[in-house]
Each structure stands twice: as C-alpha cells, then as structure tokens.
C-alpha cells in the first residue's frame, strides 16, 4: 500500500485537523455512493479511507511514524455500497423520477420511450415467490395434495401431479407477490424434492423393486403379494425363478406424459431361512445334479 501521507496529499507534519480536512475533501469526491457510475471511485476511496483510518488514530499514527507498523492491513472490511442496491431491483422505496419528470411530458420519441418504461413500472407484475417442498417417493408416483405453511402464517395447497420427478417445479399462478397497477400478481414456484424410498427406485417411467422370495417360491413358483406405489398387487412367480430374475408389472410404474404408465420391474432375490435347516442340508448333500452344476463355468474367474 502507498504512503498514507501521500494518498491524502498532506505533509508528514500535518495536524490532525489538516488530515481530517484533506480526507473529507477527497472522500466527498470519491465516495462510491456519490459516484454511482464510476467503478474506479471505489478503489480510490478505499485507499483514501484506509490512509485516513491509520492517520486519524493518534496511537496508530505514532507507531507508523516510528516505523513500528506499516500501512498494510489498514483496509476497511469489504462491504457493499448503497449504489449496489439502488441499481438493482426497482430501487423502491427510495429512487424517484423527480430528476427527469419534465422530459416525460414532452412530445418526442425520447419522452415516448420514458413514458412507456414508466408505465411498465407502474403496471409491474408481482414478484414470483419460491418455496421448497419434500414429498415421499410414493406420493410422487401416485400424486397427492400437500399444504405448505408460508412465512406469514398463511397456507398454500399444492397439488402434486402423479409421476412428478425430483427437482420438478410446480407453478401456482397468481400466488406470488401482488403486482402494481394493471400488473397481475406473480406466481408461487414450488420446487419439489422427492425423498428416496428404501424399496423403490425410479428409472425414467419405470420403477424397480428388489423383492425377497423364499427358495420354495423360486423353485416351485406361486402367487405372491408385491408392493407398488399405488398399493399391493398379486403377481405370479414362474417355476424355476432365480435371484436376478426380473418380472414386469405392466402399467404399475410412473404415469407418462400424454397417457399410459411405465412398468414396475420386480427383481427377485432368493433368501434362505435364517437358521440352517438339517433337512435342506441333507437334501443338498445328496443332490448330485446340484453339486455338479458350476454357475461360474465360462466366466473369467
């Protein structure tokens, strides 16, 4: 950082009053909020302010003069100036048009443009409001209605359409901030998070489910109950099914855009009884075909 005396343009013997005077003179010219369009004003102002912070503090100035400290580290903490806000949004409630209202009443193209943009402001549409909502996986497939509580205590009923995907945004027309003049209200935008389900996973319009089956169900086949997002259904398992055998429940997946539904894919997983069964052991040890069958045959291992 530069020599603070040089930055303020004062001699190193300057009095406290001279330093304040020099600073004020520079700050009036350089304060970023008094120069909203000058990007460089901020840099210069910071330099001047840091120099003043150092030299206006008698203790710090003494230590600087004696060489104990240098001019670094004196910068003021970063903050946003007023101009950054006055320039954003629509500047309400402070900004006003008194500075050019005389031009608006003229009869030329310039005035016409000004009038049009003023009108657009006067009839401004309300802001959109954003909310977040988490729903269960099952509700995302079957659809439901959820009520969210707004920060002001009001409530909003959100209809979740069947087949909604994680991250979808539901737009409720007219449920945002009120507009001005003829501008209608904004919308409420609800971003929906679908919570993961321990049973189901979704792949496009299809839903997958891993379903445990007993050895006898797998070997002999049978009818078993299978959960789907819209309730249990009965499904036939063919004789000789295996772990990994995937059965398809048509139309039990997520609804498709424009009609129809995806499928539910049921992947079977054979589960043996928890405690070893002597009868099963005896059977398997005498079962020659079973013992001679090598499921790894032809694979790399």
């Amino acid at each position, binding site marked *: 950082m530069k020599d603070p005396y040089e930055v303020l343009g004062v001699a190193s013997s300057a009095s406290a009053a001279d330093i*304040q005077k020099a600073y004020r003179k520079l700050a009036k010219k350089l304060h970023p*909020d*008094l120069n*909203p369009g000058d990007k460089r004003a901020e840099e210069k102002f910071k330099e001047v302010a840091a120099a*003043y912070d150092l030299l206006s503090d008698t203790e710090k100035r003494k230590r600087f003069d004696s060489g104990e400290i240098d001019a670094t580290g004196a910068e003021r903490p970063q903050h946003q100036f*007023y101009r950054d806000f*006055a320039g954003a949004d629509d500047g309400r409630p*402070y900004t006003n048009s008194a500075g050019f209202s005389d031009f608006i009443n003229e009869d030329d193209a310039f005035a016409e443009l000004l009038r049009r943009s003023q009108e657009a402001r006067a009839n401004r549409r309300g802001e959109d409001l954003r909310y977040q909502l988490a729903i269960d996986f099952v509700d995302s497939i079957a659809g439901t209605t959820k009520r969210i509580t707004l920060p002001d205590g009001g409530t909003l009923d959100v209809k979740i359409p069947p087949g909604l995907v994680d991250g979808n945004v539901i737009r409720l027309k007219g449920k945002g901030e009120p507009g001005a003049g003829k501008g209608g209200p904004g919308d409420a935008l609800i971003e929906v998070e679908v919570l993961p389900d321990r049973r189901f996973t979704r792949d496009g319009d299809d839903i997958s489910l891993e379903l445990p089956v007993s050895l006898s169900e797998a070997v002999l086949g049978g009818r078993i109950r299978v959960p789907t997002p819209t309730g249990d259904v009965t499904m036939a398992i063919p004789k000789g099914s295996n772990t990994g055998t995937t059965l398809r429940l048509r139309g039990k997946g997520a609804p498709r855009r424009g009609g129809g539904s995806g499928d539910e894919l049921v992947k079977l997983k054979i589960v043996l009884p928890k405690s070893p069964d002597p009868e099963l052991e005896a059977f398997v040890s005498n079962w020659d075909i079973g013992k001679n069958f090598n499921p790894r045959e032809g694979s790399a291992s």
Partner: protein
Amino acid sequence: MIMTRQEFLTSSGVEAQTLEFWLEQEWLIPERNAGGMRFSEHDVARARLIRDLKADLGINDEGIDVVLHLVDQLHGVRRALAQLRAELRREPT
C-alpha cells in the same frame, strides 16, 4: 437477509434514538408488517451511507437531506437511462 428493528440496531451500531430520527425524516423507509419493521440489505447499505456522510464527511442533518434527495434522483435517472438503453436495443432503428 431481512432484519428486525433490534437486529438492525445491533448490526449497524446505530442508536435507537438516531434510528427514530432517520425514520421520521424518511431517510430510511423499511417495510412494515404485523411483526414490526423489516430492514433489507438495501436499507442497511443506505444507513451506512448516512453514517459515512455524517461521521466521515462532516455533513450535517440539513445537508444529508439534500444529499439523499439528489442521490435518489440520480438513481432514478440512471434507471430511466438503463431502461431507455434496453428499449433502444430491442427496437430496430
């Protein structure tokens, strides 16, 4: 970030009495709802400007009134200019 009156006083270091005066002068116009005043970052930055004008630049209350009025007009003009610029870009000349 939106602050209540108390949060605003704490974070800005402005005295309660000073804030009352600023509100009375309409130098600050926070939003109001059933729960009281709501200060936006916009209001906080404006409070910082008022403090700079007063403490750093030695401008008195009468002067601050004038400065804020001119600054508000300046931003109005800048906004109108920006809108005109946008309109001109859109319209083929």
